[in-house]
């Protein structure tokens, strides 16, 4: 906005940020420490950059854990450069020259947003701010009262300020907002009383009811879609998606030009109908079988995971117990060493102590090794079982698919028979029914019609094969992925544990060493 002082716009550079961070950092003793060490930008939680004549927001990407940012009283024209500040809770951009709300799509934790005294004319682009509680939009150019309805989606919004906007001139302004944002508690820094809310609700009841109805419809549709998507997801996990209907059958005929032409032949319609019914029944069989197998696999996996977890848990408990025991002893022996005055005794104790450490290391490592071996065995067993299960599933699906193919072959024979019959009739001129021209064009000689029927048949077989291949590959790849992951996880776990044990032993050892050093120095 217009400033009384007209300074040159400044750039947000490192220097400026460092200065601000240093000024706003810890005080007194802590401040001394901070100065000694320096403060990293990524540790800063709150930053104040007001009255700096900043034109463009920049260089803020390092402040990853920033929670509060004040950029008020600058000459910023566009909201930008805030994408990395995902932990931001408090953002103040008041008294700037912003014309549109934008660039806030990553700030999902934002609760308090102030855009007071800017040039905004439309409330928009706030969808990501699901936790928004306070929104200050006073002294802007918002002119459409209907724009407020946009704010209905923020369920946590309690405080709103819109005074100083053209909309606030509207005589119905307060009532309207009260009615459309019933959860609002403060409007323009004043509390909304219950009486007012009641009045507003009564006044706008019909339109709000309508709005609610529409919102509910949308909501319901979304939920419906969600449910459907989830169901499909589930079917996909079982590798039998879209086999619970005519989808495969329909897809067989979508690319099959000859097939659809041939279906116009007399007698083919009924044949096709019967074929479809049988085909769909087999598909359904595959589908149900797939779901059942999926459940079986899941149960197997759950069982396995549970057992593994239990084993690991038990092993951890043992390890913890061992460490706790050691630590008790450790404290005592450390104290004993400290208090011992005789040098030879000290040495003896140190030796004893380091033996203890070695023993602990051995015990923990043995435990880990034991667990690893046990898990290895269990994993192998699981591997065998799951591969068997998948193999069985594939086999059965293949046999069912073979049935589909048989049906197709059967259908093909019948179709061919009918086609040849018709061809004969046409040749003999006995054909009394009218055939569409493109169909009739097929019946020129035997080769043409046989080729056409054959092409249709080939397409169908191809579709069936493709679906089968897809299923088999996917289930196999799932199986390999799963097993890979299990193996990898186990290796990771093992490495982590070994690392942990080593680290701990190192720590204990270093404690002993430092003690030794101290003793030697003394």
């Amino acid at each position, binding site marked *: 906005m217009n400033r009384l002082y007209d300074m040159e716009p400044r750039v947000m550079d490192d220097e400026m940020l460092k200065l601000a961070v240093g000024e706003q950092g810890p005080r007194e003793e802590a401040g001394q420490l901070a100065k000694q060490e320096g403060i990293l930008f990524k540790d800063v939680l709150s930053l104040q950059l007001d009255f700096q004549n900043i034109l463009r927001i920049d260089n803020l990407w390092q402040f990853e854990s920033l929670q509060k940012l004040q950029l008020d009283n600058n000459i910023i024209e566009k909201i930008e450069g805030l994408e990395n500040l995902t932990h931001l809770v408090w953002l103040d951009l008041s008294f700037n020259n912003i014309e549109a709300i934008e660039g806030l799509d990553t700030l999902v934790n934002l609760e308090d947003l102030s855009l007071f005294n800017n040039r905004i004319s439309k409330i928009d682009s706030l969808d990501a701010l699901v936790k928004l509680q306070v929104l200050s939009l006073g002294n802007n150019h918002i002119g459409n009262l209907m724009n407020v309805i946009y704010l209905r989606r923020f369920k946590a919004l309690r405080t709103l300020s819109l005074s100083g906007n053209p909309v606030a001139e509207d005589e119905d302004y307060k009532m309207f907002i009260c009615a459309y944002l019933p959860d609002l508690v403060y409007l323009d820094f004043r509390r909304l009383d219950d009486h007012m809310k009641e009045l507003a609700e009564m006044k706008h009841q019909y339109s709000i009811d309508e709005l609610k109805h529409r919102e509910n419809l949308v909501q319901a549709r979304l939920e419906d879609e969600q449910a459907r998507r989830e169901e499909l997801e589930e079917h996909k996990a079982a590798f039998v998606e879209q086999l619970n209907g005519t989808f495969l059958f329909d897809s067989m005929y979508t690319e099959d030009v000859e097939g659809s032409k041939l279906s116009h032949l007399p007698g083919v319609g009924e044949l096709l109908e019967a074929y479809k019914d049988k085909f769909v029944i087999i598909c359904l069989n595959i589908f149900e079988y797939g779901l059942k197998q999926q459940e079986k696999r899941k149960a197997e996996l759950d069982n396995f995971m549970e057992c593994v977890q239990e084993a690991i848990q038990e092993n*951890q408990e043992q390890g913890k117990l061992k460490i706790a025991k050691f630590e008790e002893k450790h404290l005592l022996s450390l104290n004993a060493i400290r208090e011992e005055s005789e040098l030879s005794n000290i040495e003896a104790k140190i030796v004893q102590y380091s033996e203890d450490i070695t023993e602990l290391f051995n015990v923990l490592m043995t435990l880990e090794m034991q667990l690893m071996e*046990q898990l290895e065995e269990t994993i192998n067993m699981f591997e065998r079982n799951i591969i068997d299960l998948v193999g069985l599933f594939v086999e059965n699906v293949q046999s069912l698919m073979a049935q589909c193919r048989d049906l197709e072959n059967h259908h093909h024979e019948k179709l061919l028979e009918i086609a040849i019959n018709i061809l004969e009739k046409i040749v003999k001129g006995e054909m009394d029914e009218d055939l569409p021209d493109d169909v009739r064009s097929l019946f020129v000689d035997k080769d043409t019609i046989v080729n056409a029927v054959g092409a249709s048949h080939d397409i169908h077989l191809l579709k069936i094969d493709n679906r089968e291949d897809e299923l088999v590959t996917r289930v196999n790849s799932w199986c390999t992925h799963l097993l890979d992951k299990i193996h990898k996880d186990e290796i990771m776990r093992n490495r982590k544990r070994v690392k942990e044990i080593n680290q701990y032993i190192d720590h204990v050892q270093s404690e002993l060493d430092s003690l030794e050093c101290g003793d030697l120095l003394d």
Partner: protein
Amino acid sequence: MVQAVLKATSSLDSQRHARMEVLKEKVEEEEAAEREEAAERAERGEKTKRPMEVRRGETTMTQEMLRDLERKLSEIEVSVPEKILTFTKDTIDTSKLPLSYQSNTLKEEHLLQVADNFSRQYSHLCPDRVPLFLHPLNECEVPKFVSTTIRPTLMPYPELYNWDTCAQFISDFLSMVPLPDPLKPPLYLYSSTTVLKYQKGNCFDFSTLLCSMLIGAGYDAYCVNGYGSRDLCYMDLTREVCPLTMKPKETVKEEEKAPPKKYAIKPPRDLTSRFEQEQEMKRQEAIKAEEENRRKQEEARLLEQENAKTDPLHGLRVHSWVLVLSGKREVPESFFIDPFTARSYSTQDDHFLGIESLWNHKNYWVNMQDCWNCCKELVFDLGDPVRWEYLLLGTDKPFLSLTEEEDEGMNDDDDVENLGKEDEDKSFDMPPSWVEQIEISPEAFETRCPNGKKVIQYKRAKLEKWAPYLNNNGLVCRLTTYEDLECTKTLEVKEWYQNREDMLELKHINKITGLNVDYFKPGHPQALRMHSYKSMQPEMDRVMEFYETARVDGLIKREETPKTMTEYYHGRPDFLSYRHVNFGPRMKKLALNSAESNPRPMVKITERFFRNPAKPADEDVAERVFLIAEERIQLRYHCRSDHITANKREFLRRMEVDSKGNKIIMTPDMCISFEVEPMEHTKKLLYQYEAMMKLKNEEKLSRHQAWESELEVLEILKLREEEEEAHTLTISIYDTKRNEKSKEYREAMERVLHEEHLRQVEAQLDYLAPFLAQLPPGEKLTRWQAVRLKEECLNDFKQRLIDKANLIQARFEKETQELQKKQQWYQENQVTLTPEDEDLYLSYCSQAMFRIRILEQRLSRHKELAPLKYLALEEKLYKDPRLVELLKVFV
């Protein structure tokens, strides 16, 4: 000298006693004579009269004999025991008993005949068995059949609805009187109302009362006449273990072993020698067996010792108890209840040595089974006529379907089967009970025991019971257990309290260790649950438990020893679970040495925390130790779920000064830390400095809290002492009898109401008020005024009477005239009238006539009453307090 006086008094007592007896005898004689006449009129059977005659024989002592006896008695010095143990009918006032007690109805007579017949046949068939207990005399010397003495009653107290509490109540409520002859059933069986009134009775009274209540409550209960052990008959529990001392059996739940899962890991191979294990096991077993053997021997020896005294009359002692059969009220199995002790026994118990007969309010059964092996082999299938011979046919007990056919065949050869089954009996059922309804007043119910106190001696234990509010410290029950059989060395004392204001419920004193444990109900001002201590002095060993939900700080338990204090918490927002404080020796301070003014220095505070789910595990402190003396703080963090080691951190709080004299704020060696997964920011000095500053504050806070805990202990101890001294009892607001406040309030309310009522009555009757109102207010009446007032009042009343008479007269005349007119009209138009009009006319006539008659009656009544009313008013005016002084002269 004193003895002589005592003797004199006791002889006086005995004289009085004897005289009373004589008087009673006389009364009885007359009554007996009357009853005999009545009995003859009723033409009762031969045998039923017999007990009466026997009784009469006893009573027909001449006056001389009595006098003689009296003299003799007065000479004998009898030391009358304070408590009259024998419950004779002399103490019963029979004159106020209802008629059903004093005579028999026709049906009852009939029943007695039947019973006699049955008894005759029974003694004929089973000559070696004792006569049946069928119709003993009641308190009015009238023979009553035992079944009619049972009066099924459902008591209005919920406590009496279940058999256990009901039996307990009866055993508490009545005091036990042994049978006059332990080998025979008593001659008398009093009604339950009498028994309840005098609160004592023998086993038959007990079981009759209990049976009445149980049947009333829906149980299938029977009175049993049989034989019991000596302990049972004399309610001797000294050889029984007190049920309160027995520990409730811990139901050890067998942990269900889940079937091994498919992917359960295989355990690591066991490399120990199995042979060695087996050898070890064998050795252990041998030791165990030896121990067991020794224990058994010891037990046997003890048992022998205890059972040294055998009873010479074993198996002959008559006892009565209650049998509850399975089936009704969800009783799964038949069992006995001994009414003296209210304990239940299985039907196989050793104490019960045989059954003669049993009865309920509907029928009477004789046991035909052999009792050689106590009651162990008895079958309680009352429908089986071979085992149980019934007196009346047609009870609700189902016959065994099997025996029905056999019955026919057996009728001829087996006479026992035929007993009491004559044709005339078939339509006969038990007459209703002659006993009045059993009633127990709420006061009596609450007082429970006679005089509200009862003492039961058990094996190595003594149980004392009191009614609530009897002891002013709320003591209701005390169990003293002893080490030896002679009850000389006290082991421990348990005292139960009720209605205490401080919610004290149970006090457990162990005499050997000197440990006192107090248990509290919820509601103590400091939320105490349990307090165990050896002395009430502070800083001693003690444990206090609390109702943590009632406390803001969530404290569960606080344990103290002279040097430490340990507190356990639950459900705190800061997740603190445990705080342990070590105290050092107190600083020498001569002036005051109380804990309040000079707290002991704390050396070490250990605090543990539950896991805070909001924080990641490696930032969530699990334990922190403030070593105050060493100025060190140790932190241990929680372990992450996939780790076995946890972060640790140790801060040295010591302030140091560097070579130039500047204060060193923070150096890396002031914080030693171990991190499972090293993090960047924790290495920073700033972070460590901030953490240490925070910990310093928290240390202060912890010390303050520990100090507050100490203060609280002192406060609680003080409060407990005060409570022990005051021991005030709470009174429920619904207890209108005891609640003084509500009583006062109620009485005040009643008084106010009563006064109000009186005032209203007075206000209504003030005839003089309208006349007094004419006079100037506040002035005293002169005589002339008074006279005038009276005259006016009377005149006015007279006028009113006359007016009223006139009014009635006027109405009467009007009514008559109208009727006449109507009649005239009717006579003139009689010819032209339609039937409807005629009907209308007739109904009008009858109504009018009715009205006229009523008016006539009212008038005559008014004429009659008016002078009386006038006189009454005059009388009242003469007596009016405002006029009486002034009018006196004229009277």
